[in-house]
């Protein structure tokens, strides 16, 4: 730019000629120059302010925009490295002892609606009712046209149903991914598995929680992501469980029973190989509990674990085994079973008013004499009997790993009188579950150690508390064998396998508490096999059986529970890998007459 001189010579000379003060020109020029400088500075300052303003605006816009994005997006964990083992956190599978699946997960979808997004709510409702006939049309219409902003329509839908709903083309019908619990074997082992339902539910996921059985007992373990890839291994055997349930169902129908239970247990490890309770249910579609009536009639009721019954004469072996253990009797001690016998003012009778006379302790078991066991139990005494039964686990609920097991609290007499001692010795006055009985028989069969029944696969025998000597246990099993070979359980013979066992037929108590029914019984057969080297114990219990093939209805366990148990053993023993053997038989015409 051209700098204007402060004192331009031409103008000065002109001004001097006119007699004016030339300094005025200089001042004027200085003023103009200062104005020019001021304007320039101003423009520059304004420009800087603008740039600064734009920068601040951009910075705030960036921060604001970022905050908006953060507020709007799904939160994500910042990570420095890739995730570890739990790639797919799901509820762990449940498998049987051979790794066959009993419970697994399946991906499916839930269906929900957002009515404010709907275009044709009424048409959607109509189409939905066509796909899901159990939905109510009016209900859907009121929900879709009302004030609701969100509602679940179905918690689980199949892929076909999903496609059908998708084809409705309604934008207000939405799907959420769901994981559902699947029991591929249907009703098999329903009472053990229990079932699963949804806990807290969101649109994108829902918790799967166990609602009963082992699913509830091990809920935390099954949900723990650290164990997600490790299935829970049960002691059950799918094939044997299926065979047991099949035979039991057939037997229950033949014997006209209203319910049945069976427990098959390994006497050394305490593993429950199969446990069945009928009637049963499908855990995929668990029925709701009964609201009225007796809970024990519900299919959800586990008769093998929750049902506490007076199991009758099957208890007799405990009284005799204890007496042998204490040295009070041996197998051949003569017991007087002649009437009358009165304890605490009550007469003690026999089945069908029989009189067995003077018989050996072994015969007391074989003939199932009430008076015989009663007299032996009186010798043992209430205190010792109580301690012995407690050591066999008859005072506590069984420690089985299903949530219902805690409900199987045995019913004990409030005061343990002499009369209680006598009645309990033949299985009345003390109610316990079939599983309790299985644990008790397991102690007899494995040489005298109490084993805890368990549903988890074990690798080694349990070293339980010793409750009796191996000799006593062996003598008890010999007596049990004689019950089958020549006593009340003669229908229990299985070709190829030597079975020992004891029957029990107990009259059912009236629920109102007024004594016992005359024509309703609980028939039980507790079996041990193979009796020359016991490996398994099987308990079969029938609720109100009646066998009608003869002239008059027969209800005793020997006619009802025993044939079913024999059939179960014939079916499952080969599956258990037991080699059939013909045991050295006691010839019937050779009997020991004196010792």
């Amino acid at each position, binding site marked *: 730019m051209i700098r204007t001189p402060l004192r331009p010579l031409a103008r000065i000379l002109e001004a001097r000629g006119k007699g004016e003060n030339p300094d005025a020109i200089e001042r004027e020029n200085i003023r103009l120059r200062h104005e020019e400088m001021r304007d320039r500075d101003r423009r520059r300052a304004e420009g800087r302010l603008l740039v600064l303003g734009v920068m601040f605006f951009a910075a705030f816009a960036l921060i604001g925009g970022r905050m908006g994005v953060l507020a709007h997006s799904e939160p994500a964990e910042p990570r420095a490295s890739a995730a570890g083992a739990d790639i797919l956190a799901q509820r762990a599978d449940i498998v049987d002892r051979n790794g066959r699946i009993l419970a697994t997960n399946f991906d499916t979808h839930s269906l929900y609606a957002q009515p404010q997004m709907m275009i044709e709510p009424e048409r959607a409702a109509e189409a939905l009712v066509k796909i899901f006939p159990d939905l109510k049309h009016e209900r859907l219409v009121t929900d879709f046209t009302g004030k609701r902003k969100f509602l679940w329509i179905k918690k689980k839908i199949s892929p076909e149903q999903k496609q059908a709903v998708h084809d409705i083309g309604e934008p207000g019908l939405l799907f959420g991914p769901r994981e559902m619990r*699947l029991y591929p074997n249907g009703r098999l082992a329903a009472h053990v598995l229990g079932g699963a339902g949804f806990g807290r539910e969101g649109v994108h996921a829902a918790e799967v929680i166990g609602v009963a059985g082992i699913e509830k007992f091990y809920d935390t373990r099954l949900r723990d992501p650290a164990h997600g890839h490790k299935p829970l291994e049960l002691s059950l055997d799918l094939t044997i469980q299926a065979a047991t349930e099949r035979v039991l169902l057939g037997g229950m129908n033949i014997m006209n029973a209203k319910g049945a239970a069976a427990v098959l247990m390994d006497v050394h490890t305490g593993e429950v190989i199969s446990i069945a309770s009928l009637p049963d249910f499908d855990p995929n579609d668990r029925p709701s509990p009964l609201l009225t009536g007796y809970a024990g009639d519900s299919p959800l009721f586990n008769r093998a674990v929750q049902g506490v019954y007076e199991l009758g004469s099957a208890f007799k072996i405990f009284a005799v085994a204890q007496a042998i253990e204490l040295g009070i009797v041996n197998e051949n001690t003569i017991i007087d079973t002649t009437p009358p016998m009165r304890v605490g003012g009550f007469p003690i009778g026999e089945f069908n008013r029989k009189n067995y006379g003077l018989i050996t302790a072994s015969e007391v078991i074989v003939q199932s004499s009430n008076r015989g066991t009663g007299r032996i139990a009186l010798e043992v005494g209430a205190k010792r009997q109580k301690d012995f039964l407690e050591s066999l686990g008859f005072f506590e609920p069984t420690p089985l790993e299903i949530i219902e097991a805690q409900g199987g609290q045995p019913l004990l007499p409030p005061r343990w009188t002499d009369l209680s001692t006598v009645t309990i010795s033949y299985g009345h006055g003390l109610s316990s579950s079939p599983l309790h009985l299985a644990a008790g028989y397991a102690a007899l069969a494995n040489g005298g150690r109490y084993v805890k029944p368990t549903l988890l696969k074990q690798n080694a025998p349990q070293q339980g508390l010793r409750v009796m000597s191996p000799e006593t246990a062996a003598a008890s099993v010999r007596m049990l064998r004689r019950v089958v070979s020549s006593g009340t359980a003669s229908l229990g013979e299985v070709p190829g396998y030597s079975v020992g066992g004891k029957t029990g037929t107990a009259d059912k108590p009236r629920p109102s508490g007024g004594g016992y029914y005359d024509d309703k019984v609980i028939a039980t057969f507790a079996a041990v096999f193979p009796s020359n080297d016991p490996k398994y114990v099987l308990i079969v219990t029938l609720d109100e059986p009646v066998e009608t093939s003869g002239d008059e209805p027969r209800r005793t366990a020997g006619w009802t529970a025993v044939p079913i148990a024999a059939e179960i053993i014939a079916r499952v023993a080969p599956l258990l890998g037991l080699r059939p053997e013909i045991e050295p038989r006691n010839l019937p015409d050779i009997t020991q007459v004196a010792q």
Partner: protein
Amino acid sequence: MRSLFYIASFLAVIGLAYWAYYENYRTQAAIAHAETLEREIAENRQRLRVLNAEWAYQNRPDRLRELAEINFDRLGLVPLKASQFGRIDQVPYPPSELDGLIDLSKSVDVSSGEEPL
């Protein structure tokens, strides 16, 4: 000399910055790759679970029993019985490999000196 030092350190800063940037991007790419693989593993596991469930469902005892009943004529499957167990000495010896190779029944005895007919 001094300016040379400045230039060297400046270049070093640029180089290190580039290296750090490069490594960062490489790490992120590796994480993204790992995530893709994990997603694939998860999908495959999911598929495996579905297939296992399907297998268990197809092999459920009820169905197998029904199939055994339907195909009883052809297969004749019955539950395992005690009588199907056997001892090892009940198993017959396999036929000798020599059987059938040389048929000795119609052989000609050349040592007898007679003319074959």
